[in-house]
């Protein structure tokens, strides 16, 4: 996977985009993700109602008419809430993956670069944390910090670190054993140059794929915590939290349950497809 070499650098970019768009999963995934970003950025302009305004047009109005996706138990417009929810969801994904990615990559690259006891300590503790599973780490974090959206995002981000560290370590280890890497050590390259110029750009393709797929995992995990009441608190229009609230009206207003669920599923699907597409277009072996 990390066989993407130097000659393939920035100049390959247009070819890369063409390859991404020529794979159906990459193209559909990118379209979904771009649409989500658009909704998140322009939620104020796109939303027909204020998402937290109660009683805008009656409670439990079914989808259709003045309220495209109906209204909830407080008469809030579901379409507007979903639009604003996309902002929260994307932010959750970005922040959680940001935490996992930066710390995980730092651990992985340092372990692969320093070797010896540093490597032993870092990777063995990663193994231990990995066997705890992400759910347990996230749940323990929320148990300690207390339920809130912010804590849920931190918990999901921290829980992802072991996986990112492992993947980055494996990718970096492949690079350090290549002739060009040994050649630059012989040529007298310092640690900063070796890590930033040689290691980083070469593990990046792998890590971009992992991070894209990781956004879906993070969104699912955070929505799960919110669903349990351990994440977003009222009156946030977070999708997982909205789903949890819909349980009480499951018979009366089933759309309150179906709509946020579809929103989460489509978002996660978008990042999964984009990740798959990126993998095939970044990986020279699969590209053949």
């Amino acid at each position, binding site marked *: 996977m990390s066989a993407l070499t130097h000659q393939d650098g920035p100049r390959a970019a247009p070819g890369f985009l063409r390859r991404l768009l020529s794979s159906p999963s990459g193209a559909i995934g990118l379209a979904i993700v771009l649409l989500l970003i658009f909704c998140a950025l322009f939620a104020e302009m796109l939303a027909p109602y204020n998402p937290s305004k109660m009683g805008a047009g009656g409670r439990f109005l079914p989808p259709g008419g003045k309220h495209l996706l109906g209204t909830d138990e407080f008469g809030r417009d579901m379409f507007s809430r979903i639009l604003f929810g996309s902002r929260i969801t994307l932010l959750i994904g970005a922040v959680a993956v940001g935490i996992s990615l930066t710390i995980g990559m730092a651990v992985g690259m340092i372990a692969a670069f320093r070797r010896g006891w540093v490597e032993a300590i870092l990777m063995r503790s990663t*193994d231990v944390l990995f066997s705890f*599973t992400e*759910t347990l780490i996230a749940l323990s974090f929320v148990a300690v910090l207390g339920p809130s959206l912010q804590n849920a995002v931190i918990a999901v981000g921290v829980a992802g670190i072991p996986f990112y560290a492992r993947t980055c370590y494996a990718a970096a280890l492949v690079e350090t054993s290549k002739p060009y890497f040994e050649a630059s050590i012989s040529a007298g390259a310092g640690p900063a140059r070796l890590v930033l110029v040689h290691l980083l750009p070469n593990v990046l393709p792998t890590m971009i794929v992992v991070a894209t797929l990781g956004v*879906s995992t993070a969104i699912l995990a955070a929505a799960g915590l919110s669903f349990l*009441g351990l994440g977003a608190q009222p009156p946030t229009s977070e999708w*997982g939290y909205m789903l949890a609230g819909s349980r009480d009206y499951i018979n009366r207003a089933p759309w309150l349950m179906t709509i946020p669920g579809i929103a989460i599923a489509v978002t996660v699907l978008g990042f999964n497809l984009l990740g798959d597409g990126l993998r095939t277009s970044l990986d020279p072996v699969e590209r053949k």
Partner: protein
Amino acid sequence: MWRFLGTRIAMGAFTIWITTILVTLLIHAVPGDPVQIMYAQSQGTTPEQIEEVRRSLGLDRPIPVQYVMYMERLLQGDLGATIRGGQPVLEVILQRLPNTLLLAIAAMFIAIVIGVPIGFLAAYREGTLTDIALMIVAIAGISMPHFWLGLMLLFIFALELGWLPVSGNGWLNLVLPALTLGLSNAAIFARLTRSSMIDVMSQDYVQTAFAKGLPKALVLRRHVLRAGLLPVVTMMGLQFAFMMGGAIVVENIFSWNGVGRMAVEAIFQRDYPIIQGFILTFSVVVVCVAIGIDALYAVLDPRIRRS
């Protein structure tokens, strides 16, 4: 093979040991005074009572002493008492653990029975419309939040059709939670089985077997299936851990009386002894299952068996 298993068992023991340390530290990581927080919800607790609890939990001692005390009690099978009700934590957990294990095992069964054949079929028909359709279903399955799938199944089969009970702890009640957890994991098994089978089918020895004219069914059964299922077996350990995690959410949807539901309640009530006990139990179960799967793998893979 024994060396392989010995290393795994040692790693597992090490993991559990680290868990005991983390669990002791957990209560100190709580912002503010944990005893105050635990009792914040019950009215009329006097400062003397709070001091008493602090002493009984050993929280007035230095942390290393606390750890030794915790380990001493732990080795005697004492996980402390719950804050609310004062029941032994071990008893509370052991009452519910079988329910969670039952749910996870049933879900694993569903995931394998559905996922592996789908993956195999897709690999066999690689590149055809069948393959593409199956893989679209699989990626949609992976993307679907299992708590949503659970709600939908509950709505359709319990409320609309009335075929199955909404909640409870009988055998019929197991169907929907196990299906919820199993279906979302079936998609993962399908994808893994497919890529593993495709990998094996392109191996030289399989190509040779086809080339020398062996019947297709025989090659698939004797050469492809056995080798192709090995990564699936490895994956089972990791999947079981995922299912234990997923059970936390699913148990809450269907009011299934397992340790996951207990843990979430304990987090709301700030019942730290239960949370500590849950984390420890969870990691012991996950480690034991992982070692069991490794043993199975060692028996199945001749490269390890004969080493």
